[in-house]
């Protein structure tokens, strides 16, 4: 397994390089450049040229790319001109915020989704199944940013139970309790859709497993029903549920962009949106590389855990 992990990590390098090339190309294909973004209405050709020279952007794109690549190999992600700060500091700061949000959401939606799916499958066509199926359908259909805004209206403005936005209070706070209070709404809004998807797929995975022979055998041997469902069947069903969770991890990360905008969560998604609008190439690159690396890592974790659960999956 160790060698497999190493091989997968090495194979991630060309993937990451490919992504940086694509980002570089896209950023060069869209009109407008950083100087224009900074100067706005004052972007005369003369001013743009002068500013690009000061920003070191007067070189060709290929030159810029290789300079960037050379620096990155030495761990230097450059300095963001739009934030006046080293890219790495900014990305790490922001990424830790996103990880907290996405991580909590992922754990929440995995536990709730699997539990709902299992209950649903065990009581197929019963009232619990119908209620859960309906709730899941509604959950999948509501856009998360809309849900977020509605939550703000209700819990922050009407009831005043929770803060509207941000990650910590402006006054006092700064402790774990404060963080959790700020985290409740964005994490909930972010997990709803993923919970629904996981619940649906867990239900069908469980239904399939519950029809298999070994389940009948277990029941025949007198194993209590809850033991059959939660211990025997779920363990087998997890083999097909885990890849779904892996895919949802990706969706949660990208969904975090909207949620971060609505709740002004200082995460990497919001950072990327702003960096793209300001044409801050170095910041976009730095952010994308780290997010992409994270995807690769998620997939790796999923594959490895799948092979640990199911000996038939070769590593």
């Amino acid at each position, binding site marked *: 397994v160790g060698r497999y992990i190493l091989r997968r990590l090495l194979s991630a390098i060309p993937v990451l390089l490919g992504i940086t090339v694509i980002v570089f190309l896209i950023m060069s294909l869209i009109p407008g450049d950083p100087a224009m973004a900074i100067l706005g*209405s004052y972007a005369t050709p003369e001013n743009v040229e002068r500013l690009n020279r000061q920003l070191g952007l007067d070189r060709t794109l290929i030159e810029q790319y290789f300079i960037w690549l050379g620096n990155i190999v030495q761990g230097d992600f450059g300095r963001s001109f739009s934030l006046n700060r080293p890219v790495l500091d900014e990305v790490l700061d922001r990424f830790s915020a996103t990880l907290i949000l996405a991580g909590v959401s992922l754990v929440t939606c995995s536990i709730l989704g699997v539990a709902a799916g299992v209950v649903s499958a065990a009581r197929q066509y019963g009232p619990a199944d119908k209620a859960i199926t309906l709730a899941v359908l509604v959950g999948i259909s509501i856009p998360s940013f809309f849900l977020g805004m509605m939550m703000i209206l209700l819990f922050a403005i009407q009831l005043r139970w929770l803060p509207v936005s941000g990650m910590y209070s402006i006054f006092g706070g700064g402790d774990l309790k404060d963080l959790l209070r700020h985290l409740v709404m964005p994490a909930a809004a972010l997990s709803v859709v993923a919970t629904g998807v996981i619940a649906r797929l867990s239900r069908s995975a469980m239904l399939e497993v519950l029809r298999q022979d070994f389940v009948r055998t277990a029941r025949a041997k007198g194993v209590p029903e809850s033991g059959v469902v939660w211990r025997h069947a779920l363990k087998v069903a997890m083999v097909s549920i885990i890849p779904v969770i892996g895919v949802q991890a990706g969706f949660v990360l990208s969904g975090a962009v909207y949620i971060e905008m609505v709740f002004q969560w200082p995460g990497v998604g919001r950072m990327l949106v702003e960096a793209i609008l300001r044409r801050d190439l170095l910041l976009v690159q730095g952010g994308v590389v780290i997010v992409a690396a994270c995807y690769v890592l998620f997939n790796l974790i999923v594959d490895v855990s799948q092979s640990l659960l199911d000996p038939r999956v070769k590593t």
Partner: protein
Amino acid sequence: MVALYLTRWYLGTGLAAAAMAAVGFGVTATQAQSPPGVLIVGQIAEPQSLDPHAVTAVNDFRILMNVYDGLVRYADGTLEVEPALATDWEISDDGLTYTFTLREGVNFHDGSPFDADAVVFNFERMLDEDHPYHDTGPFPLSFFFSAIDEVQAVDTHTVEFTLNEPFAPFLSNLAYPTGLIVSPAAVMEHGEAFGRNPSGTGAFRFEEWQSNTRVVVTANPDYWDGAPSLEAVVFRPLTDANTRVAEMLAGGIDVMVEVPPTALVQFEGEGYTIHEQAGPHVWFLILNTREGPFTDVRVRQAANYAIDKRAIVEDVLEGTATIAAGPTPEAFAWAYNDDLEPYPYDPDRARELLAEAGVEGAELTFLVTEGGSGMLDPVPMGTVIQSNLADVGFDVSIRTYEWNSFLGVVNPGLEGQGDMAQMAWMTNDPDTLPFLTLRTEAFPENGGFNSGYYSNPEVDELLEKARTSTDQDERAELYREMQEIVHEDAPWVFVANWKQNAVTSDAVENFALQPSFFLLLHDVVKN
């Protein structure tokens, strides 16, 4: 990195005590209420830098104007220049030499003295590419001072600027954020990180900048114009307008700027005050006078008659703008031509003119942006304009662009791109906008912004004269004449002048918006 966020944050002992008190009752009333004396401002974005010479956004200016002073400033409620760090100045008869007497006994927040050498350092850092600290830039708006030939310290408290040509907007540019004076000692100490460690002479001193969370400034008790009443100001970046409104309703901020027009109604009841102030802003349509139907002045006038500006201003913008009469905003009171009447909404007159010109049913390509600095609500505004023009027989197709892409298409000129384009400008003097957008010399191929290729030798001459004259009355006369001609020639459709707005909670007193669109918090009280 999580530890970074978990560290507690204190702001001097007094404030810490206040904060602790807030935590105390915060358990029931949530985070919301901030302590008296501390003002929380909801900004529209994270500042780019707190180096006034390095930034271009009004959003950043709102912080900077409270941390720094310039040699001169705009008098309260006007766009007229008055003394600030300079107590007095003299302009030579040829308009080439400006001699400033500097205020004595002023220190920067870092303790270093403000003197003539500091002023020289500021302008040389921006303008001289060989200056040792020029690399702490870039300085995108340094061309505001490109007329400066030399800056000299005559003695400790006298500075002399020599210009390479008479340049009337010079004083006004000095009052702009690009003319704010930074501490040379702090620049030397922090280098390119000065923008995150700013030091000026202003009413508030910089305390802390936590990325994407807050910028905190505290009162400067030694401020030359009297210590401010507030103890501290916290600027919070809230990029999403809906979230900004929600924070205001929940009490998470005390002041909110740039309230979306549709949200204003929520603040009309008790508990809030809505502030409005017309500014030096104009929103217009550039018409392509080089090719297509708008080469004919009658068609351009017809477009001005055809568009229902009142509907745009009152219904789309919910009263957050006024109707523009001509190219110069009314906020420049001294240079504004009061006799100018906006083109009335008169579709019949428009149809007549189009019939005369023989271009009924012409097809037009209309370039629209999704949003951008000063563009207000461009897509709905564009849609109204499209339907107004359709009413008089035009067939208008809209092409929409993201802001930077839009500038990339429009700034190089409309030839081959479209017949009309949205645009908005905000300037600090009446000179800049017409100079850059209405002169023959300012065609895009010459590096200007005259993207519609308007050319009238009479206007060229008036603008050239107005820019070099040092007599304000004479300049006013020239600008009034220019506005009349441009109004008649109609190279643009004159649409709206934006009224900046803000909402404050009842705890805030003495708050006023400025025509300059700067946010000045020196006199504000928070109970």
